[in-house]
């Protein structure tokens, strides 16, 4: 087992709908997706954001594309037009999620690194 940050094994992107922030997580492999579906819980996520989320956390798996949709209710200080947060539309909430520490099997870390390398090789100049 190895201690990693979520950023090592997944990508993410977030946005807003009113006072709801959604954080989409893209696993860097199928096995990582399976691990995350089992291990990411609403309780863990709420705790991770340390009081920023006043409402419920909902998790929606998307096995067809190895992604997980996380919905954070009442998490944007009243929504884009009212909030006092600088990041009015919650765009940076996704990378805050990536700070989460987790213990994963070494093989998953290898798979993530392989994906990172493939992306660089396939699309990088």
């Amino acid at each position, binding site marked *: 087992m190895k201690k990693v940050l979520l950023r090592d094994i997944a*990508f993410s992107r977030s946005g807003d709908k*009113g*006072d*709801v922030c*959604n954080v989409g997580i*893209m696993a860097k492999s199928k096995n990582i997706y399976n691990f995350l579906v089992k291990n990411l819980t609403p309780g863990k996520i709420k705790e991770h954001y340390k009081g920023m989320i006043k409402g419920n956390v909902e998790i929606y798996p998307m096995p067809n594309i190895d992604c997980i*949709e996380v919905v954070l209710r009442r998490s944007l200080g009243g929504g884009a*037009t009212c909030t006092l947060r600088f990041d009015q539309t919650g765009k*940076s909430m996704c990378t805050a999620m990536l700070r989460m520490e987790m213990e994963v099997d070494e093989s998953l870390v290898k798979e993530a690194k392989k994906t990172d390398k493939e992306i*660089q090789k396939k699309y990088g100049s």
Partner: protein
Amino acid sequence: MKSVKIGSGSAFWGDIFEPALEMAQRSDVQYIGFDHLAELTMALLNRMKSKNPEAGYIPDIIPWMKTLLPVTMPKGIKMITDAGGANPIQGALEVKKIAKSLNLDGMKIGVVYGDDILPDLDRLRKDGWKFKNLDTGEEDLDSIRKDIIAANAYIGADLITKELNNGADVVITGRASDNALYVGPLMHEFGWDFSDKYVDKVGAAVTVGHIIECAACVTGGMSNMWKVSKRPWEIGFPIAEVYENGDAVITKTPGSGGIVNEWTVKEHLIYEVMDPSNYMMPDGIADFTSLKLKEEGPDRVRVTGMRGKKRPDTLKVCIGYRNGFIGEGSAFFPWPDALEKAKWADKWVRERFKRLGIKFEDFRIDYIGVNMLHGEAAPIEDKDYNEVGIRIVGRTKTYDEADAVRREATHLWTMGPVGVSFGVPLTVRPVVALWPSLVPRDAVKVESQLMEV
């Protein structure tokens, strides 16, 4: 198999212009959709219209149409835009004027309106409809009724399709759903309707609309692929090649910068979505959990297996209401002891506000460079920072109190610790809060007309 090419030319009011022009010039798209409206925009446009009855549309439509029409008309590219905002008919009249000056005689402009339900709000409430707040669960509008300044339903593709069937070269709408700007042309081209027979096809159109409607956001903008996006300063906007069987290929303007790959499509499929198996739009409910993605070449991703469910009986409605004022200010502190200086300033302004007796509805202090973005989720490092800023922001009932927040922040500039630096002061901004709700579809009387140049 018949296919249709549709691109996205704008994702918000203020978006960059060249990608739309380059798409029109270099690609063989048949349609380009333009979204200019954010949740707050309608309230802003309403205010413009209340000051001048000939305003209230997105003013960008004038320079954009002047440049685009000479390219799109000869090529037969049709444009669908929600730039009508709070005054679609006036917006259309302006486009007509431009077309006339460009000698585009015979050009047809479809106008779709009726999304403004503010005049009907009280009647609908009297009839027993409750505008429940979808965010907070509050049942009753009474607490905000006197402050309401806008109420717009997100209308669907019905009449966009109708005006395209009537031969419109340009369709201008009020607050149509961004999504409908893309669903409309696809339904028009393929002859899809809202019957059970086409639910998956319309679901595919809704999904394709979602993937491309935020323009740069699927071609390397706001992307996890930012390091490998090619010439991002020449970013191309997305184009969907949609097939009659409901499959699609997502690509972008030939020769443009940016990137389209399975990751950029994925990151948009998960963007601003709640339950991905019920992505609810006025024209249908798309299920994003059945589709498959396959990269079939550079900047080409095939999407298959898209599904849908019947459109809902209600439309989303955004009610905007006045909710006080926000005052904000900042100051910046250099090494050494930058964070300590920021904490000193934190205490200083709080004591000042106490002394002045300001009542806050909401108040917040951020340390810029430390926790302004990730808030409580950001660990504060124990180090001597090069520089730290302080951001002071408060929401108040009155303008004067919000102005005091701004003013006290500027006083830090002369009374703060040594080295304090400052920039341009901000102005107080009035707050328009949003009350998201639903309205029965049949209560919204959407209308359209065709103007000929």
